[in-house]
């Protein structure tokens, strides 16, 4: 049996993209794990899942808290059409997360690059409201 993973990866080319996030107020003072999860969420939202071409360590799996793990499991289940067996394969779950984050980080940077300075937060705010309203939560 393969040894459990001790870290999550990004595409090597994504390092500079993650570094670029630091310049935006929204991402300041957040950890790489947080950036990864955010990118994963955006990738999932836009359904952009890209396999990693070359792997580069991003953070340790021990950094993940239960709610982070739950999100990754949820993503894995949804991506495999609720195949519960995926839950017994952490490596696969993490790979799915990495691929969505790989797609997400590119979307984020594209969005940042195409919005006026300081306007990214406003876009995010609007998106969040639109998303929330679409959920029809009572």
């Amino acid at each position, binding site marked *: 049996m393969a040894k459990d993973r001790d870290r999550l990866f990004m595409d090597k080319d994504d390092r500079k993209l993650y570094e670029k996030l630091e310049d935006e*107020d*929204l*991402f*300041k003072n*957040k950890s790489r794990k*947080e950036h990864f*999860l*955010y990118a994963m*969420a*955006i990738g*999932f*939202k836009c359904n952009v899942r890209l396999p990693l071409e070359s792997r580069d360590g991003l953070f340790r799996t021990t950094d993940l808290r*239960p*709610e982070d*793990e*739950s*999100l990754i*499991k*949820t*993503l894995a*289940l*949804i991506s495999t059409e*609720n195949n*519960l*067996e995926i*839950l*017994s394969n952490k490596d696969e779950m993490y790979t799915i997360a990495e691929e969505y984050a790989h797609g997400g980080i590119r979307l984020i940077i594209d969005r940042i690059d195409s919005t006026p300075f300081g306007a990214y*937060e406003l876009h*995010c*705010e609007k*998106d*969040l409201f639109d*998303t*929330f309203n679409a*959920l029809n*939560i009572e």
Partner: protein
Amino acid sequence: MRIDSLTMNNYRQFKNVDINFNLAGENDLHVVIGKNGTCKTNILNAINWCLYGDEPHFSKESQRLPILNVEAINNTNDGHYCSVNVMVYIKTNQGKYMSFERKAKYKIQKGDGKQPIHQGTEFQVEATDDDNNTKLFSDEKADKQVERFVPKKIREFFFFDGERLDHYFKEATAQNMRHAIFNISQIDLIERIEKRMVILSKELRSEAGKQNPAIEKTRESLENYENNAEELVKRIEESTKQIGIAKEKVKECEDNLKGMPDVEKLESERKKYLNDRDQKKDNLKEKFKQKNSILFDYGKIINFWRPINQVIEIIEDKISKKELPPNIDADLLNKIYNSRICTVCGTKLSEDALQNIADLLKTFKLSKLISIELLTSLSPLKALKDKIEGFKIDIEKVKRDIIQYEKDLAEIDKKLSNIDKMLSGYDENKIKQNHIDRKKWELILEIEQQKVGSFKLQLLAFKKKIEELKKELEREIGREERLKELRKKIEFCQKAVIFVEKIKDQIMDQTRKKIELRTKEIFFELLWKKGTFKDVEISDSYDLTLIHALGYPCLGSVSAAERELLALSFTLALHEVSGFNSPILIDTPVARIDEEHRENFGNAFIRVSKNKQTILLFNPAEYSQEISNILDDNCSCRFASKLMTNEFETTLEVL
């Protein structure tokens, strides 16, 4: 009386100068114009030195120089003598001439820092009597002649700096007025009588005390109280003077601050607003951070709301179907099946038993690992779901806070802008200084008023005690038959003191009323605005009040020119009431008057000079076009004082 001429030989910068105040025309008005530093003020000093032997109007420049002309010192050999002399020739109202001459002799010493040694001063007065015989007076007799021209005690009302006019009704007015009226009343003799009677009374009581120790004890106690009461009266006078000054100073500051913003208060408000602004800005920054944090946190999870719900449903479905938590350990069954031995009892399993295990394993759908993964996820997923549902509440709250802080900041900026607007265009330091000064004088005023209140209470108690002790002393002295005569004398002295005090007050009161009347008459005669004021009053407590035509007191709010005119009128009234219609000499008479009113003041001087010799010493800036237009053609003589290139000699040119 008028000054006919002034001769100065070796007096300060005047080496050999004669000024003839010839009367030409109907105005006995004479003007000397000189730059500051040309010893213009020393004309004032020369007259004072000649008549009274002192120089009360020293400038800093003069203080550095000896009274003896420097050029004269340089031209005199070491060890030789040189004199300074000033002569004032006057013409009396009867057309007779008098000369006052003061001469000081000095021995010259040459060498660095060596000053001439004063050898002695002579003062003599030469006067012609009714038979045109010349009489010489020296020493005390000469001084007495001066007292008939302008008494030393009241000279300050005849020869003075124009600043006096400006300040006369600004500081401690009542004290100044009382002082002036007292001096003018010439009641020294009465006062001397009063003092003498008091001393005599004390001496008599002391004599009585020697006769009887009990009397002495009471006398000592009485004298002690009297001395303390006297001290208190002096302190009350001093504090009252300070109150007068403080009131005027507070008023002056208030006048200066009229229409001015309260800078200190505004500065303090400004500081507070700036601190508030910084605080609010920090808070706003923090709120923006919070908002970003919310956006980030929800951005991370909000898109998973539906998937999260799906997974929760799956897990809850499994739980409801009792598939979770697993009641069979599939791994253990597999192990038993493969080993064919029961791990519990250790017996070999039969084929039937193995078949049962195989059937059981077929019905078991979830592995232990998956079950655990699902179960451990339920609680965090529910928490995430709840959190997502709270998005609007969280974000709206922080947005409300942001809006509130932004509103607060806009409000603060508006207030700061208003303060800046109020302060712009003003000399903040000057305004601040006025506020500081006002506070200082208000504090002094309060302290002095408290002092006066406390002193008066003490004085009242002392007076009561004095009366008691006096009666006690009278009783004690009365009991002694042998002191009968002494008692009568003491009673006489005491009655005399009361009588003399009454007379003194009456004279002062009469003088005050006369001066009040004449001040009013002269003021309204000289005044250029005829309808503005109604009356001038000098109260029993010697407060001078100028009444506006509408009936309210207005001395504090009149222009400098009007205030100075009132002071000049008061001075002229003093001249008249004193009976000394001697010349008036004013140094820098209109320096504090704005150009608009100089013309009016010039006209006032012309009117004054019709009945009184008026000598005015101007600096060129003061002798502005407005003054020149009025005085040039209306004065008897005009002189210009000029400092020679060696800076030790001033000459006077007739213009």
